[in-house]
């Protein structure tokens, strides 16, 4: 199958080189791949080369035709005067089509909401079960616990938390200097959900925990159910002790559930400690922050029923924690001293 034409030329030795025997011998067990030329058609590479050559020939022929047309009818025939323009138009048309194809491919790839579709494939009964389960910690930590990867429940919980925060901010008369109430609420809730999820996922990556980003988002999202319940109750019933009890019990239960799920997927004492300590601290502190930052203090004085009647000066101060008030006082003192110093100059 290999032609021996090329090989005959290389046979310069008087005693007849090795090549002849190898190529011409039909009984030879050794096939010299180097000497197989392109017309063999048996190896893939050769087929590829053949196709490439055929394509090139086609292109060359096409170009030749095109140039022939161009030079041949260089505007001589009045009717064909626009052939150059037609070629230009065809090229421009093809460029436009190629660009459009690229753009629509990119659009379909990135703006396709079908990417998210599998994460929203839930039934109402499943959502309800997961909501209840998010408050029940499971004690099995030696085997990875199953974490559902869905985004519908977490998203709805974040929006519910936003609505509850708005309610709390309105009734406490929170004054937002820069930005709007709605913007603050949305920013806080979504920032917490997305930011803390990413941070814990990053820590999990460092500590070699077996959890995906989707599972982390889902876990933290469902953990906000406890927050929603606590805030909804305490924005309407104002007892500090009630809030602390609920914070410990409900916040603690949902934190324990998340922590147990993550522990079951991590190996080693130190990584487990790092991950769970961080998550527990962030989750519990967030609930504390949400309560105190937008809380309306003294029960009985400020009532939403009679809100509009009160002149502004009678609005009660916000219940900032002791540390914050101390810091504010310290700041006031320093500013006053600075003012005195400046004045004396």
């Amino acid at each position, binding site marked *: 199958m290999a032609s021996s034409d090329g090989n005959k030329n290389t046979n310069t030795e008087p005693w007849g080189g090795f090549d002849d025997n190898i190529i011409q011998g039909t009984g030879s067990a050794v096939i010299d791949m180097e000497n197989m030329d392109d017309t063999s058609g048996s190896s893939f590479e050769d087929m590829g080369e053949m196709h490439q050559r055929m394509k090139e020939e086609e292109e060359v022929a096409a170009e030749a035709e095109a140039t022939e047309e161009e030079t041949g009818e260089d505007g001589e*025939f009045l009717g064909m005067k626009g052939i150059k323009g037609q070629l230009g138009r065809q090229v421009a048309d093809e460029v436009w089509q190629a660009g459009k194809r690229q753009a629509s491919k990119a659009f379909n790839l990135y703006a396709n909401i079908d990417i998210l579709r599998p994460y929203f494939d839930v039934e109402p009964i499943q959502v309800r079960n997961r909501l209840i389960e998010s408050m029940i910690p499971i004690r099995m930590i030696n085997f990875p616990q199953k974490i559902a990867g869905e985004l*519908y429940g977490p998203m709805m919980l974040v*929006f519910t938390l936003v*609505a509850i925060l708005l*309610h709390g901010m*309105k009734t406490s008369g929170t004054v*937002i200097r820069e930005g*709007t109430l709605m913007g603050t609420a949305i920013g806080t809730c979504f920032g917490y959900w997305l930011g803390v999820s990413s941070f814990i996922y990053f820590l999990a990556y460092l500590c070699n925990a077996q959890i995906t980003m989707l599972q982390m988002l889902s876990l933290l999202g469902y953990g906000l159910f406890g927050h929603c319940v606590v805030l909804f109750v305490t924005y309407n019933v104002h007892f500090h002790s009630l809030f602390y009890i609920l914070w410990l019990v409900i916040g603690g239960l949902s934190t324990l559930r998340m922590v147990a799920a993550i522990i079951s997927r991590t190996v080693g004492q130190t990584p487990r400690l790092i991950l769970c300590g961080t998550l527990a601290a962030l989750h519990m502190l967030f609930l504390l922050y949400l309560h105190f930052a937008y809380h309306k203090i003294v029960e009985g004085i400020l009532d939403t029923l009679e809100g509009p009647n009160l002149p502004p000066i009678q609005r009660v101060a916000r219940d900032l924690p002791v540390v914050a008030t101390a810091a504010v006082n310290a700041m006031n003192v320093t500013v006053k001293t600075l003012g005195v110093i400046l004045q004396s100059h």
Partner: protein
Amino acid sequence: MAEVDESSKPMFAGLSDVSISTDIPVEGEINVPVGTSSQDDEYSTLDEPVKDTILRDLTAVGKKFVHVMYPKKSSALLRDWDLWGPLLLCVTLALMLQGGSVDSKEDEGPQFAEVFVIIWFGSVIITLNSKLLGGTISFFQSLCVLGYCIMPLTVAMIVCRLVLLGGSGKVSFIIRLLVVTASFSWSTFASTAFLADSQPTNRKALVVYPVFLFYFVIGWMILTFSQST
């Protein structure tokens, strides 16, 4: 073309056998559409007086309002959707909800932009949610339905303002609460009647909840609106 060939330069004489000769008839249509303007007048709305255009659009919007007031299973809202009605309602609501002047120290009420953004972004998110859950409704149809169903809440806002004019005490609060609750449930019910048909039967609750939350937030903004003196 044949005449041109004959008068061309001699170096193209060899090509005379490929040129078009006179006895081959030219085929094809070269009719230029002239004088069909009388037919076009029925389809092009560019030449009609402005009053006709506005009236036609207003009637369409008005018909849809009536459909929202009496939510029956009709497809008029879905078939020819338009966004004029939602825009009108949104701007009215935002203007009425605007609280306080720019110089006031207490920024009590939501600003115009806030209400606008809440309504439009809320609608977009609900639409995306219903599409992701497998809905068959299109993006703009859903926006149209959600926008039109804000109408009961706008009516409630007008009523609340009138009630507040009469004084703000416990009684007025109770009246306002009742009015807002009624209109918010009406809105939710009306939009559910249009939207839920496009969902598979067992997932209706998943689509209704965000709609409920959306109208709840708007209703809450209306209820807590207080006139700054």
